């Protein structure tokens, strides 16, 4: 059998510069599974890409509809932006009973949506990350921070939950200024941020998008020199772009304990893409989990395997690290239990989203240096 | 009889499927003035456009100085020494009066100042308004700009489509005077006129065009003398 899995990301549109790596991440897992030969009696997996455009819900719906009804995919990895994710879920996945795992839709609102148990996400909801950020920052003795966030549900959600948690710990958020991605100029935001002041600048944005413009402007004008970078800002590009200038800044990202992230990055490098680009690990995990669940159910029918996602993602069972999918498949076919850890340390909590383990890092000598896990 | 300097011979053509010109012939000798008259919509302007190459002919030829120029583009005809003032849209509305005149001399490489002076002398009002956008001028003033632009070309053949429409009598007199003078320097003038009686008075040759075909042809005086022509085409 050849199992088709849909990969629906915004290959054109505002996120077009990070989605190719995400898709590569998801497809890496599929390739690994296909090549293992252990998947569903030697079945193979074929990815089918479709363009969510990130913003156009209607076009995304049509694209997903095509994947499901014309291409006959058994599951969907995606979509990327929360808006299109929920449109695809409501208009395509639910009506057709297809499992959908999003690697990057972090909007807290999605936790409450009706999904008939079909919708999962390997990215933690923003609510939790905000608390982690507040912890990290206040533990370093910082009491005032300016926040800028990308003006979408991810950025806003993160900024809000951080601000709330930070205030609860006695910190002061001097300003919360949104920035739009893909805009030509961020001087206005930088002016406002600098005027408001603060010991650090928290940049809840995307490294290839507005977030980068903001950091650039803040550095150039001398407004800030220490930054906090949550997951969307993590990536090799950040170091490449700013090098020494962001020495001493720090941040966090969802990641498993140990060296799993590094393992994944090596895998990615071998496959020819950048594993540090935002949400690539999550995408890998999303695809891997979907396929492992199929294996556990012994079927690629969504109605059957949707109930196995929790089993494969959570303890008890043998821990499965990135690159060990063959082992996982093998164990499952032997009827054993596994606990998929993957690139980001996925652990599902109700209603089907990653609880989130976060790695705290420093930027030191032009490299990311892990401080600890939370 | 030797062939006229410029001739549009047995021209057939139109804008859409239907023909507007049905085999009319128009010619002018060197240094002569030829005037075309006729009712509205007879095809006078169309004939002028055809001679100037702004309309594809379905039949007939245009010859200049013995050479067939039917295939040339309007631009190339300008280079051959033809100049044309269309009936409508005959100025560059957003450009100043002086720039309009300069554009008339676009292909010339010599000193254009004397010609410019000549035009200003002919139409004094234009000197006063030379830095004003031509689109802001009064109807008659625009007409003067249009004729001035054509004069700037220093053409061998000057084609004018109703140059005096909207022009006040005093300027019209001046204009006709000047046209006679120009013709005397050896330039051929081909014009359409509704102020037909004045125009025919100075014309060496007159054409009455009706429905795209020649109805009457003769010297200006002959046409003026023909009571039929006078009554039906010249307003009595």
């Amino acid at each position, binding site marked *: 059998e050849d199992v088709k899995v849909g990969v629906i990301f915004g*290959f*054109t549109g505002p996120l*077009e510069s990070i989605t*190719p790596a995400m898709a590569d991440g998801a497809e890496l897992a599929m390739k690994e599974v296909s090549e293992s030969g252990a998947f569903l009696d030697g079945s193979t997996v074929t990815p089918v*890409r*479709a*363009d969510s*455009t990130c*913003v*156009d*819900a*209607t*076009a995304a*719906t*049509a*694209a997903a*509809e*095509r994947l*499901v*009804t*014309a291409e006959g995919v058994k599951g969907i990895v995606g979509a990327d*932006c*929360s*808006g*299109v994710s*929920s*449109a695809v879920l*409501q*208009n395509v996945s*639910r*009506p*057709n*009973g297809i499992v959908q795992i999003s690697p990057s839709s972090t*909007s*807290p*609102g*999605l*936790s*409450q*949506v*009706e999904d*008939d148990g079909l919708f999962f996400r390997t990215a933690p909801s923003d*609510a939790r990350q905000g608390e982690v950020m507040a912890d990290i920052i206040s533990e370093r003795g910082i009491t005032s921070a300016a926040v800028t966030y990308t*003006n*979408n*549900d991810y*950025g*806003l*959600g993160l900024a*809000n939950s951080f601000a709330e948690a930070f205030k609860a710990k006695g910190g002061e958020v001097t300003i919360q200024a*949104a920035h739009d991605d893909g805009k030509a100029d961020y001087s206005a935001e930088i002016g406002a941020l600098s005027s408001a002041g603060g010991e650090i600048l928290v940049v809840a944005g995307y490294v290839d998008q507005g977030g980068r413009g903001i950091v650039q402007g803040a550095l150039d004008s001398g407004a800030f020199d220490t930054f906090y970078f949550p997951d969307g800002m993590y990536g090799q590009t950040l170091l490449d772009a700013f090098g020494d200038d962001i020495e001493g800044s720090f941040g966090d990202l969802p990641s498993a304990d140990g060296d799993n992230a590094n393992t994944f990055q090596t895998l990615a490098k071998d496959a020819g893409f950048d594993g540090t680009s935002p949400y690539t690990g999550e995408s890998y995990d999303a695809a891997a989990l979907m396929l492992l669940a199929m294996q556990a159910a012994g079927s690629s029918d969504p109605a059957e395997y949707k109930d196995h996602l929790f089993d494969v993602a959570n303890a008890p069972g043998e821990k499965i690290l990135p690159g060990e999918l063959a082992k996982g498949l093998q164990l499952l076919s032997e009827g054993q239990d596994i606990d998929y850890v993957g690139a980001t340390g996925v652990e599902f909590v109700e209603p089907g989203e990653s609880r989130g383990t976060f790695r705290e890092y420093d930027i030191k000598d032009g490299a990311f240096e892990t401080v600890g896990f939370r | 009889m030797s062939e006229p300097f410029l001739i549009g011979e047995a021209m057939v053509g139109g804008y859409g499927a239907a023909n507007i010109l049905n085999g009319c012939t128009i010619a002018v000798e060197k240094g002569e003035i030829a005037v075309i008259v006729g009712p509205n919509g007879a095809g006078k302007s169309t004939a002028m456009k055809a001679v100037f190459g702004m309309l594809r002919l379905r039949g007939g030829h245009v010859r200049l100085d013995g050479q067939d120029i039917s295939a040339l583009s309007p631009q190339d005809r300008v280079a051959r020494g033809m100049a044309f003032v269309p009936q409508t849209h005959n100025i560059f509305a957003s450009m100043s009066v002086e720039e309009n005149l300069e554009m008339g001399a676009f292909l010339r490489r010599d000193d254009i100042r004397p010609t410019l002076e000549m035009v200003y002398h002919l139409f004094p009002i234009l000197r006063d308004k030379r830095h004003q956008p031509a689109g802001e001028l009064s109807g008659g003033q625009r007409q003067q700009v249009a004729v001035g632009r054509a004069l700037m070309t220093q053409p061998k053949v000057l084609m004018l489509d109703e140059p005096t429409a909207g022009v006040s009598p005093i300027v019209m007199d001046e204009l006709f005077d000047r046209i006679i003078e120009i013709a005397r320097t050896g330039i051929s003038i081909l014009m359409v006129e509704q102020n037909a009686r004045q125009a025919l008075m100075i014309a060496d040759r007159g054409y009455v065009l009706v429905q795209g075909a020649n109805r009457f042809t003769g010297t200006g005086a002959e046409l003026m003398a023909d009571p039929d022509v006078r009554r039906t085409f010249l307003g009595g």
Partner: protein
Amino acid sequence: MTRSVLLFAGMAALFVLTGLTQSWSLALTVLNMGVISAIMALGVNMQWGYAGLFNIGVMGFVALGGLGVVLTSTAPVAGAMAAGGWRILLALAVGVLIVLGAVALWRRGGRLRAPAVILVLVAGFFAFRALLDPGVAGVEAINPTVQGNIGGLGLPVLLAWPVGGLLAALAAWGIGKTALGLRSDYLAIATLGIAEIVLAVLRNEEWLARGVKNVIGLPRPVPYEVDLQQSARFTGWMADLGIDPATGASLAVKLGYLGLCGSVLALVMLLAELALHSPWGRMMRAIRDNEIAAGAMGKNVKHQHLKIFIIGSAVIGIAGAMMTTLDGQLTPASYQPLRYTFLVWVMVIVGGSGNNWGAMLGGFLIWWLWVMVEPIGAGVLSAITAPMSDGWLKSHLHDGAAHMRLLTMGVILLLVLRFSPRGLIPER
């Protein structure tokens, strides 16, 4: 005439082909949105094709239509009015009064009017904010992950369609009153600007419709597929017809939408055609051709412009509400000028501006293309690369496959415009 019939037949064939080669579900999905696009195109055609008004703020009206759905059909948020809703309404009313006052002051003239107006506006702005901000804070504090807005009226969602049209019409009235004196591209950029302002409000005022946090799970005018699949009666029918119940449910829902949207399209089309082919249409064309002469011939150009601008915008607003209903959610981030303004314009121009049938055909065709260029483009690309030997170029091209979508769109658009520069079904 035969040409238009042929073109519409061709269009229908495209959809049937989609159904046969891809899936009927997809064909219907595309068709439904095609119907809505056609209505949008008709709205723009009224403004541009009839009256020559260059409105490129289409996106704003579409979004307002969507807002109408949220405000009409979502369930009321408990306690929102008490927590600050009334205060917000009061602030808005005060805001309107301040603006009206400033306008009145300006009209009265006098040498000091400019500073006076500025003073009133600045002072008014602070008063407005002082009133508004606490209200907003109160409302936004209510269960922010899923609510945090003032909520809707909980009315049937079909009612939201005219409401969406009404909101758009109101906005159009305001815009028309101020900006319709502008000509061509200046009007265009002004409407574009106003659309951006509408969007900015929609994205940033969370109390209104949750801003970028999106409103999802809007009520539907048709049953849910899941419910149909569980209904014994429905599965029975499907069994009789020999259709898989999941597919059947999905088709049934889409046909339901098609019925609703199709009726709206038919009604709009009927009214538009009746109006266009009557002295009213003649008057509009006269105004479009030459405003000055039309004025001198006794037509009140300003008034007619305002009227058609409002009507066209209302039609766009209705379509916007329909689209939001079809999507089942309001996501302000999705309102991008390229998609909701320029694409609709492409529909009108490609179809044939000034001609209702043309605009409608353009709506169907361009939307179909917009969705289908992705597989077409990918297909073209693999056809191109198939004979290539493996290597750098081939893999490079493959990586770019996603961009074939826009590239194909561009090429097809250019081809269509090349062979019918005045539109597929031009104005007669």
